[in-house]
């Protein structure tokens, strides 16, 4: 019988796919942002906040940030699984990373809709 570990990666295909889909989303957003910043070399506060004033931009930014947090979870989990062997410490780091990322998600909503 296979020894199942709670802190393992299950079968991996979902994570593999998630990592690539979120990567493409972030790459497109990064290219958009890089292009926008190139078009606005002397960026001032009004221009910057105008970009984030519409709900469409806020929603897409939040979507990409959530993609980023999922991507970070898969990446951090892979790193921890490779280098941290004791199950207890591994679980502790996993929980801390997940809690941090959920907090970042809540913080992101506050930033984008609280401005």
């Amino acid at each position, binding site marked *: 019988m296979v020894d199942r570990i709670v802190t393992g990666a299950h079968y991996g295909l979902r994570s593999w796919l998630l990592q*690539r889909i979120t990567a493409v989303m972030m790459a497109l957003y990064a290219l958009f942002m890089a292009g926008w910043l190139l078009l606005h070399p002397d960026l001032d506060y009004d221009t910057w906040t105008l970009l984030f004033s519409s709900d469409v931009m806020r929603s897409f930014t939040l979507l990409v940030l959530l993609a980023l947090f999922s991507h970070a979870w898969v990446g951090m989990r892979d790193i921890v699984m490779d280098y941290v062997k004791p199950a207890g410490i591994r679980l502790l780091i996993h929980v801390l990373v997940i809690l941090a990322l959920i907090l970042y998600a809540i913080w992101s909503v506050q930033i984008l809709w609280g401005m």
Partner: protein
Amino acid sequence: MNKNRPKHLDLRLIKLPLPAFVSILHRVSGLLLFLALPLLLWTLQYSLRSIETFTSLRWMFQHPLSKLFFIFMLWAFLHHFCAGLRYLVIDLDRGIRLAQARASSRWVMIVSLTLAALLGVRLW
């Protein structure tokens, strides 16, 4: 699995080929980017909250140390971005021959370092 296989894991003696070097840097840069996430969100918050916080952010960025740190993180992002694109292409079964893989990993190093240097000089 046979656990008694001979191992040769002396890190000082292992000479990584370039694709492996790009791969480990992909991990290291990913970890650095994860650790910098609160800083990224904090910067976004300060840049949007008010004209005062926006200006103070600008002022803080004038410090040489924060510029150096930003340029370093910019390199981490660019490396992670370029190496990530390379993996996406490799997943499509393109560029998987040894010579091509070596050439593309060299391009990842060249492009990310050059872009980081150019943007770094521009921002300084």
